[in-house]
């Protein structure tokens, strides 16, 4: 029964009488079922976070949680202010974005506007390789190579510090920013560039004043995605940034991110019951909401600033 799905112009074979092809119906049902897996996943995530978090918020007021500046949930005089964890997370995201945004955009402009085809064909796969490095290896690299290097360079960093993790994370995100930005720039039609050249602009001006603004929605989406990935990153910070929940804006110090807290505390067992362990879900929920909001904002931004070239 393909009534509503008949594409225009299809030659319809006229059957003597209508017949429901049960095979087709069955297939469609099966496919729909497969598609619902993703919905169930989201439902599962929401449930597994919200239910325990609600219990948590019955004992700890959301206000104290969101505004408190001391995070000491597992100690005798327990304090549940999540601000240090958020500050830690944002510190990492900030410093890594400082690396990833300009460098990623630079790489993108180069690949899109300057590099010859042959060069691009070689470089793009290498970028993909960089993106594919497992984060545990990156964390190990940050701890055993970058931190000693920073110390040798004279920066008095603690053994676990935000800077090493941020630098490595930033480099890891360059491919993300680069590839999405490059896609956006590739979608800008030649005519716009040609128009710029015709007016006497050079390559630099065309790239930065014509192409980039035209592709800005995709570039912003790339930035937001990279930032959101930085927020959600666990292994690099768990290995190299430390577990000391404190409010500091000095990247040379030890910090704790939301993800590191979850990873370190949930290490293998989360028993049902104690308030201490429900903190994992409260923090997890905060993290989930943050990344969700960023994702929605990114979609909005893309829609708002998208230039359509048809």
């Amino acid at each position, binding site marked *: 029964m393909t009534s509503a799905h008949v594409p225009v112009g299809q030659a319809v074979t006229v059957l003597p009488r209508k017949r429901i092809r049960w*095979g087709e119906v069955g297939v469609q049902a099966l*496919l*729909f079922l497969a598609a619902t897996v993703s919905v169930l996943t989201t439902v599962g995530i929401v449930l597994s976070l919200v239910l325990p978090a609600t219990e948590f918020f019955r004992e700890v007021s959301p206000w104290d949680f969101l505004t408190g500046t001391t995070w000491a949930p597992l100690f005798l005089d327990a304090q549940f202010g999540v601000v240090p964890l958020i500050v830690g997370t944002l510190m990492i995201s900030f410093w890594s974005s400082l690396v990833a945004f*300009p*460098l990623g955009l630079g790489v993108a402009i180069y690949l899109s506007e300057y590099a010859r085809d042959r060069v691009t064909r070689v470089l793009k796969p290498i970028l993909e390789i960089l993106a594919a490095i497992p984060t545990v290896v990156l964390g190990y690299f940050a701890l055993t190579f970058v931190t000693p290097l920073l110390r040798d360079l004279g920066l008095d960093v603690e053994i676990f510090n935000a800077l090493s993790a941020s630098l490595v994370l930033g480099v890891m995100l360059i491919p993300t920013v680069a590839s999405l930005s490059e896609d956006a720039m590739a979608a800008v039609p030649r005519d716009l560039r040609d128009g710029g050249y015709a*007016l006497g602009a050079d390559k630099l001006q065309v790239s930065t004043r014509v192409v980039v603004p035209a592709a800005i929605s995709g570039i912003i989406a790339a930035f937001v995605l990279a930032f959101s990935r930085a927020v*959600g990153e666990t292994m690099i910070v768990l290995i190299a940034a430390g577990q000391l929940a404190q409010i500091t804006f000095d990247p040379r110090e030890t910090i704790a991110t939301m*993800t590191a807290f*979850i990873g370190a505390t949930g290490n293998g067992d989360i028993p049902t019951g104690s308030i201490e362990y429900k903190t994992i*879900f409260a923090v997890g929920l905060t993290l989930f909401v943050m990344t969700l909001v960023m994702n929605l904002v990114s979609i909005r931004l893309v829609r708002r600033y998208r230039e359509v070239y048809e």
Partner: protein
Amino acid sequence: MTTLDAPIQMGRQRRVWRNRLFQGAMLFAMLVAFGTLAVLLVDTVVTGWPELDRQLFTEPPSTVAEEGGGRPAILATLYLGFLVLFMSVPIGVATAVYLEEYANRERWYNRLIEVNIQNLAAVPSIVYGILGLAFIVRGIGLGRVVLAGALILTLVVLPTVVVASREAIRAVPDSIRQGAYALGATKWQVVWRQVLPAAIPGMATGSILALSRAVGETAPLIMVGAVVYVAFDPTILGAYTALPVQIFNWTKQPDPTFQTLAAAGAIVLLVIVLSMNALAIFVRNRYRKRW
């Protein structure tokens, strides 16, 4: 390209310098990206080389660093890889087919599914770990076993597989479908016999890349307790520890030999992940169809 008196006026000298500076900046960006990659690979290989021997693959881990190996972890990672492949590809492709070929975009539930997949792709992997712990390990009581880890990793990479498959299906030109319909094929016949075969290279590429990510994931597995010390080969319903988690555990141990082991494990993991990536790139280039 002559520089006529143009609306954008600039001294020629300045122009040249600005361009040079900009090109320098871009080159710097490339240098940082590729240079870091090179340094990382070299550092890992050089550090881990001493421990990269048969023992790494044949011996279980040990408290005595010199005697330890990563055999259970490597095996478990391979098992996980296969399980994830067999679970994520069918479901992911089926979802993509549904969304691209069958779903009526006007319906609210179909739009919901689409938005949902986009959001899932942005969820941090550790949140999947929480989900897995609550529902898979505890909820249905599967426990800390390989199958549970595989299920969670499948959920992590599913959005990626779906997105890649959708793009592959979308790239198949409509004329192919139209031709098949014109010959009297049913929708499923069109999909199964025309669209999917044409989309296979794209889907394969996406699946392999998703798989390589699954193999390298650590955070979700930590949450479901890929145990610290496992000295026996993994079975699907048995306790396990995966290679990334094993590397993580070795990294934490201050004994320099363990650090070397960590680097050696990292080499193995990199080889696995990078060869999968290379395979994906190869498939993409070889079978790239020009319509």
